[in-house]
């Protein structure tokens, strides 16, 4: 059974922005919110050189890594061609204005 963890109110994540979720002894997760209030969760680590995706610019359903400008699809974690690579994703949902993450 999926273990949904309550993370934060949706409004704590800016539209077209992100927050970082830290887990003890594990890698950080970035939670993104786009203009349509969809939320997405990816490993906070660009497949290129490990840049923190949470710090990138969010547009459409993509985020641009702040280090070297790779674009990563928020839905599937795949780099947008011609770049290639992907980072892990996590199930995430919004219920009653609260964001939940499957860990």
């Amino acid at each position: 059974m999926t273990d949904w963890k309550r993370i934060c109110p949706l409004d704590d994540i800016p539209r077209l922005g992100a927050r970082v979720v830290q887990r003890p002894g594990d890698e950080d997760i970035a939670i993104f919110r786009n203009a349509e209030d969809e939320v997405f969760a990816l490993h906070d680590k660009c497949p290129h050189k490990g840049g923190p995706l949470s710090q990138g610019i969010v547009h459409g359903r993509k985020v641009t890594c702040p280090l070297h400008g790779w674009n990563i699809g928020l839905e599937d974690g795949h780099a947008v061609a011609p770049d290639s690579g992907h980072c892990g994703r996590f199930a995430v949902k919004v219920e009653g204005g609260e964001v939940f993450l499957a860990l």
Partner: protein
Amino acid sequence: MKKMKLVLVGNGMAGVRTIEELLKLAPDLYDITVFGAEPHGNYNRILLSPVLAGEMTLPEIMLNDLDWYRDNDITLHAGRQVTKIDRVKRKVIAEAADGSLTEADYDRLLLATGSTPFIPPIPGNDLPGVLGYRDIADTEAMIEAAGKYRHAVVIGAGLLGLEAANGLMLRGMDVTVVHIGEWIMERQLDRAAADMLQASLEAKGMKFLLARQTEALLPARTERGDMMARVGAVRFKDGMEIPADLVVVAAGIRPNYVLAESAGLYCGSGRVRGIHVSDTLQTVTDPRIYAVGECVAHRGIAYGLVAPLFEQGKVCANHLANFGIGRYEGSVTSTKLKVTGIDVFSAGDFGGGPGTEEIVLHDKQGGVYKRVVLKDDRIVGSVLYGDTADGSWYFQLMKDRQSVAEIRDHLMFGQNRLGDTGHKGENRAASMPDTAEVCGCNGVCKGTIVKAIKEQGLFTLDEVKKHTKAASSCGSCTGLVEQILASTVGGAYQAVSANDKPVCACTEHSHKVVREAIFKHHLTSKEAVFETLNWRTPNGCDKCRPAVNYYLISSWPHEAKDDPQSRFINERAHANIQKDGTYSVVPRMWGGLTTPSELRAIADAAEKYKVPTVKVTGGQRIDLLGIKKEDLPAIWADLNAAGMVSGHAYGKSIRTVKTCVGAEHCRFGTQLAMDMGVKLEKMLFDMYAPHKVKLAVSGCPRNCAEAGIKDVGVIGVDSGYELYVGGNGGIKTEVAQFLCKVGSDEEVMEYSGAFLQLYREEGWYLERTVHWLNRVGLDYVKSRVVEDGDNRRQLHARLLDALKDARDPWQTSREAQAIKQFIPIKVEA
């Protein structure tokens, strides 16, 4: 809604590019059917020369394979030639080699039937072994002949003829190029450049017969003297005969308008033949029928290079998509010869004539020739041989009709060759070995770039940047990458004028258009900009959003609201992100001055937050590197408490005002440089700009503050200050240009403030002052800032107004809502 039917006749580069552009704009508007006479997908015709030369293979030059048509739901009828258009019933009829017929109905018809080689009417021109040079079949026939025969004759020494000759020579044939003109490529080159080119081709083994008129092509004969069914020799009007087992006729092309004319579409008469189209690429006869490419005559010109055809395709697609914006107004073209190891470039009208002047640089032994033709201080044509690195720069200046009066004395030495770093000053793209590093930032070699261009079918600088990363970091090798692109795709490459270049893929509008629209329509939010200008994406991308945000807040200060999510992370976090995701913190030190108590506070903070690296910057500040994001608000609070504020070392903003010790201490000083520097820096605090802005103030002409390489450099002299603008110490070392001399400190503030405000109001995002000055010209800036006193005072007043309630971002970022971005959310295991 039922889709409309679009039929494309001609499965070549112009037609398919139009379809690609159309699919980008309106993917679901049409059911598309494509007819092509050749039995292939769409291939890159320009690269037939490298295929002939054995440098590439046919699969490598495919642009759209059969899967592409299927993936885009396009019906392709390859190997079927359209023989009839029924304009009343709105259908086309095509015939296959076996005589079978195919019909297709259309609502819109796009003709892209290309051109056919011109074969002069001379006896023997129908003998086997006599070929034009147009398609894959011709190329294959030439390759086959090269394997069997020895003597090849190429008639016509234009681009295509020379590339064919080069390919056949590389395949082992003995090649003679016959030309009717006095020198080769006479439509693209002047005599001096042509002679140099001919000499280097002769050194490779090519033979030339110039000023020769071909009289007849003669059949080969058996040993007994019987005629055979194959060409065997070429005879000239002067009686001379040379052996020829293969004759390639490259004496020009003619628009292929047979089909169009048979359908009653107007195709001109006399010299201007081709399917006549308007600026919307609609045929002048039937508005349902469009035409693009080499088959077209637009304003009396039929283009034979691919770059104009792409421009036509773009406009045509826009109209097919019912957007109705954009007109095709003709193209200015440039030429590159694709012969490995030889750099030739030509553009415009280099013939000279009344009212023109020319500047020539000719080093015969060194193999360099440059000729630039000017008219009314503007470039109208240029021919380059050997060193072609500046071809695209000259071409750009020519297309933009920019005055070169001010740069005339160093025009021939190219665009800031000196001080170019990162690629060893390399300037001959075609002769560079494949292993040579082109992009020093991303470690990209020439071979990698060429391979990507060929295999991925790239045509634009942006595509090359995206695929190879070359020229995508600091950009200093952009000119070189452009040259490699131009020498690889030849005529297909056309530099886009900066004035027209779209901001990014989200829009077709340029920075100029966006800036002007924001001002003209009083737009104050990104949503309004995206809606007014028909953005293709819902909320832009990482390229356009920061630009639009900057334009909004600089056009409508206090009114347009800053959008943090449209800023790069450094400007959101007010610190500089490092490769490991930590940040660097630089407190402001006005004019480079500090105090023992500030230094003590910095030292305390560095220890408290375990800062791993403390470094002095080039701009006379102290940089604390390796700070965790979550510690930023706390370290700022400590530094704020000691009286320090943000140094903006992270922003497209005022960075530093560097000073020498000046007359305060220095025995040579004439002015109080430190005092002047502090006053300037306080005036400009928190000023955002299109790019970073650096100033320096020196107290005397010894210029210890290095004011000559700053956006604004102030140099004290006994009678006042000299002001210099547009300097740059980065990628390209650029020496600042003299703006004017002023007498007082107040004037230094007013003039430099007005200069920077003009840059803030009219510069394009990510354009440094030097690039902006290159674009608009120093004369223009002088006319607004120096000569027009009222305007200067207004500019200065607008700057002061925009900055009137500037606050320290380190302070405001610690306020309730803003601080959340710095704090990670912790979850339990």
